[in-house]
């Protein structure tokens, strides 16, 4: 038994050093040197200021921005509190939440792309479906006093096809779309959020 104890303790110690310290630190060093952008969270800066991560969704509520999906991460898109709603398929609370979210778009829920009414698994989904982006074009164009066709073109350009065409679904990154929108026509600083 003592022999087992010695072998177990020594191997556990050695493996802790190798795969628990050496391996993650070596990967960190490698990542920081070779892929620093990704290794530090794919941050996006504008005019020297970090405006978010290209991979993480953020809350949008002003009419002149495209909106992302409902979020169950903290109070919404909390980057330190990722979570889905975990509401089940026959949850009355879920039905009520969807109806409340649909009211935000002011229409019949059956006409609203369903990803805009359902919370993502992470609560930080950066994307919406192409249909969900197209659906919001009239509102955003009106709020920015832009030609709808111009905004629609922006949306079409922002559509990312899934890798190999089949590995996932087509998507539109909301933050990147809104950044492109701001480049096209700066957001008015007086716009008020819609809740």
């Amino acid at each position, binding site marked *: 038994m003592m022999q087992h104890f010695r072998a177990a303790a020594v191997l556990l110690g050695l493996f802790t050093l190798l795969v628990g310290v050496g391996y993650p630190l070596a990967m960190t060093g490698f990542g920081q040197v070779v892929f620093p952008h990704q290794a530090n969270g794919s941050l996006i800066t504008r005019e020297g200021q970090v405006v978010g991560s290209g*991979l993480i969704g953020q809350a949008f509520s002003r009419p002149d921005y495209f909106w992302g999906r409902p979020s169950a991460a903290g109070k919404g898109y909390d980057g330190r509190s*990722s979570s889905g709603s975990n509401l089940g398929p*026959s949850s009355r609370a879920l039905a009520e939440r969807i109806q409340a979210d649909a009211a935000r778009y002011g229409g019949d829920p059956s006409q609203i792309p369903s990803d805009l009414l*359902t919370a993502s698994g992470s609560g930080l989904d950066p994307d919406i479906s192409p249909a969900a982006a197209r659906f919001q074009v009239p509102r955003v164009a009106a709020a920015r006093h832009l030609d709808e066709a111009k905004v629609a073109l922006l949306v079409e350009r922002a559509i990312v096809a899934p890798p190999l065409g089949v590995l*996932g679904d087509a*998507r539109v990154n909301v933050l990147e779309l809104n950044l492109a929108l701001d480049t096209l026509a700066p957001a008015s600083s007086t716009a008020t959020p819609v809740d």
Partner: protein
Amino acid sequence: MTASGWILIALFVAAVAALTRPMGLYMAAVFEGRRTVLSPVLAPIENGFYALAGVKPNQEQNWKGYAAALVMFNFLSAVSLYLILRFQNLLPFNPQDFAGLPPELALNTAVSFVTNTNWQSYGGETTMSYFSQMAGLTVHNFLSAATGMAVAVAFTRGFARKSTTSIGSFWIDITRATLYILLPIAIVFAIYLIWSGIPQTLAGGAMATTLEGVSQDLAMGPIASQIAIKMLGTNGGGFLNANAAHPFENPDALSNFLQMVSIFAIGAGLTITFGKMVGNERQGWAILGAMALLFVIGVGVCYWAETQTTPALAAANVNPLSGNMEGKEVRFGIAASALFAVITTAASCGAVNAMHDSFTALGGMVPLVNIQLGEVMVGGVGAGFYGILLFVILSIFIAGLMVGRTPSFLGKKIEAREVKLVVLAIFSSPLIIMLLTAVAAGTEWGRAGPLNAGPHGFSEILYAYSSGGGNNGSAFGGLTANTPFYCYTLAIAMFVGRFVMIVASLAVAGALAAKPITPETSGTFPTRGPLFIMLVASVVVVEAALTFFPALALGPLAEAAANTLF
């Protein structure tokens, strides 16, 4: 269901099938102690480890010695991990100043990671220091996987060897599994994952000011290195709360695809490792065939179910043609989310890229049933393979009863002792699952857990203990599991589900190794054709159906039949 969804599923099956043979043959070389391409680099490290640990490279163990070494190693692992978690506030790499974990959560988490379950009663980004993540959890992502592989290989030696008591050396098996298989693949995979967008930093996170002027605090860390082994070792414990649904754990559909493949890579390969070591590769493919049959059925049902609407979506008048996107990410969509859910529970991985709790009643039942089937469709690394071998022995025994001959498999007579041990191994996990589910459903402590009302609340409890007892680790995440009651009872489920099965499996291996190999005759039940594949798959399904049907009827089946809101 769409054509592209089915092409995705076909691509996945093809990718795993293509990897199976090279992985299997390489692992056979590793476990037979032969030189490999990596030996020039790794052999000095390996020999140094043996010298320091006092392990003799030529000394093997009988099954009791093997089991004692395994239990000792896992016991020390659990104790040391418990202490790291309990006192992480005193240790380095804690930029967010997290406190030490309370005793019940530290115990639950220690047992969880040592048993390869990776059930998480906590949220990673709000609980764990980087030291705990790296030197604690990552280490046992490797070592629990290596332990499972060691048991699978020891079991294999029971068939490969004759008239001997030794089934290998536990120390050598876990050392070689970690050094030659897990670590090199994890390094390559981690490099890809960083490139794909998973953070790998020791900084405490980043602050952003959103376009609407609100500050957003982004949790990060040395994530990629942990995700690589989390998937490869079928561990499944996320660095972050939302697990593989979180964009920082799974940035796009390609990283998602490769993570899915990596969950199955080792488990599928082990069937060929087995075939190679017993000198009959076709036997390995036949076992993989039984696994694949069950897997594909599960994928079909789950994918179909998730394209349907739910009572909640219907009540809110959401377009029924858009399927169920609650709890799913846009970049994956319904097909890749359903496929992931089936893979993660066919293996005992437990990572999730969508919230199973929000799946349709029948769609969510598929992962639950997968776990209850014993996670033998490829399964956890090692655990899935010794799991299916137990079912193979049981199947051969049942076939022997039907035709009235002494059952034998690969020239080994299957006798009373083996069958008793197999039954003990197979039923230990269902027994503890049913027992603890009943206790939870019958007490206020347990009933305080579920988020959802009605049958779905019961499903959350049933899923939790199935996941614990089956060493899976995924959850119907609405359950509030960070309470002393759930922490302790789930720790019991995980412990029994892991170690009773392992020790019984090693005992079977010892009994088999001691037997001579008798040549097959025309009267031997054929074990490499479709009949065998169907038989094994049926035994797996019938065993689980007889055990779990009443509980499933109270949970997901009742919910599906009721088709109303709760």
